[in-house]
């Protein structure tokens, strides 16, 4: 078992517009990307569990071969408005940490 943080090249989060946060997991080469893709560890259920969100709040979950990457996009919590009151992360750039410890066989 290896942690995703030891395999991936980039693990990040960022706003995609004011109402969504998008996450990218990008790999340094075809082999590591294939390994993670074939393990099927990264999926909607996993994300739903890690971030405690409902499936319908996961707007996108996909792999993107040309970039050797996985992406998923979540709806922002309605209790906060981007760049407004009760904001917790204006750029949505610090929401990725729970992904680092995902275990890949």
């Amino acid at each position, binding site marked *: 078992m290896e942690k995703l943080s030891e395999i991936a090249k980039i693990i990040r989060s960022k706003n995609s517009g004011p109402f969504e946060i998008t996450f*990218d997991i990008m790999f340094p080469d075809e082999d590591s990307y294939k390994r993670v893709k074939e393990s099927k560890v990264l999926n909607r259920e996993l994300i739903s569990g890690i971030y405690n969100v409902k499936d319908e709040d996961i707007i996108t979950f996909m792999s993107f071969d040309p970039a050797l990457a996985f992406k998923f996009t979540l709806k922002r919590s309605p209790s906060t408005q981007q760049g407004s009151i009760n904001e917790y992360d204006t750029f949505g750039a610090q929401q990725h940490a729970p992904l680092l410890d995902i275990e890949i066989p």
Partner: protein
Amino acid sequence: MKEIKILTPVGMLGYGFPEEFYLKGLERNPDAVIIDSGSTDPGPYMLGTGATLVKPMAYEKDLKVILRGIGEKKIPFLIGSAGGAGTKENVDYMIETIQKICAELGLKKKIVGIYADVEKERIQSALKSGQISSCSSSPILTDTDIEHSVRVVAQMGAEPIYEALKRYPDADIVVAGRAYDPSPYAAFCMYKGITDPGIYWHMGKIMECGGFCCERKSQVILATVREDSFDLEPMDPSNRCTEVSVASHTLYEKTRPDLLPGPGGRLNLQGSQYEQFTDRVVRVKGSQFEPSAVYQVKLEGAALVGYRAVFIGGVRDPILISQLDKFLENVKKRLESMYPSLKTGEAKIFFHIYGKNAVMGTLEPKKDAAPVEVGILGEVVAPTQELANAICSNTRVGVLHMPYPGQLATGGNLALPLNPPDNALGPVCRFSVYHLMDVESPLELFPIFEVEE
């Protein structure tokens, strides 16, 4: 085959770029210099308060380098989403600043402007006629949202900028208000006779961020565009584009990387091919543009929410840390009894607890953290600054002095680093409009004008 070259100094006007690489780019005889000046990423306060994304000194610095480099040469310079939010004020400010710099440099340049502001009545009537739809998970738009909006702009597609170039073929500089980021790039290619929208929309989508698509995120980049492909090359000789670095670009800040909706249609990258043409240059082919049945523009509007005051303090006492949520609930209850506007919801108190879940809020999976210390950021919003200040002050006093079960430390609950401890922040805004509007014509909202010398 016809080739046109577009030089972008940096992905955001005002962020700065190495002049030597920009000059290298100019040596390649580009057909245009194009730059994006807009973003909603930092939040709604620019649109709500009229502030620019970057400070005036930074704009002037970049504009001076760009215009000095172009000099007397007839290389058109296009700016999209002037000033950040791209309002009329922003466009006028940008034009004035450019005129000032041209005068300083002894340059005579013909400037054309395009506004992007939308009247509230227009949006209200569109809402009534069912011509408004949500964009990127925005909530349903109400008449109140429109009414409260201080400013609203629409993101122009390529057509208004293309029209400006056709109408004023001797224009040296085009200053566009709010635009869909790739629009100036697409417009210029249309003007130069490139007919495949898949080519120029994809090129524009990448180029508008400058050298972000390179192996090392950088600034100056040159695109060479043909009828059936486009090449990307960073002007820093030590940097390069790779197939993966270019393909990865549309992951950044996008809901999905392969289908990118915009005014007039959708860019489909599912069949795009990326070729490492040289060890530094990538060639892209195969991107498709799918026109939409109805032409839609994205509206962005901001409204004032209220005025804010904040305090920040640290807690080191483990007895209080272990019961902090309950304690702060009690503080809120006490404040509600003092200020009726907290009960009605006109005013609000938020506590951000650093060390616990201030960064991730409800997404935070680690529920059992036992930090040695926490930072409490108390945020108060109210209809007036005076009320926000008063509530903030009383709240801070509440957190500082209210008792709690098992308390041993009665000197004060907070380590306050700032004097004065309560600080007024001024107005706070929200995105009141972030929706798509159907339009009859791509030009109707975007008046084009020639600037008087």
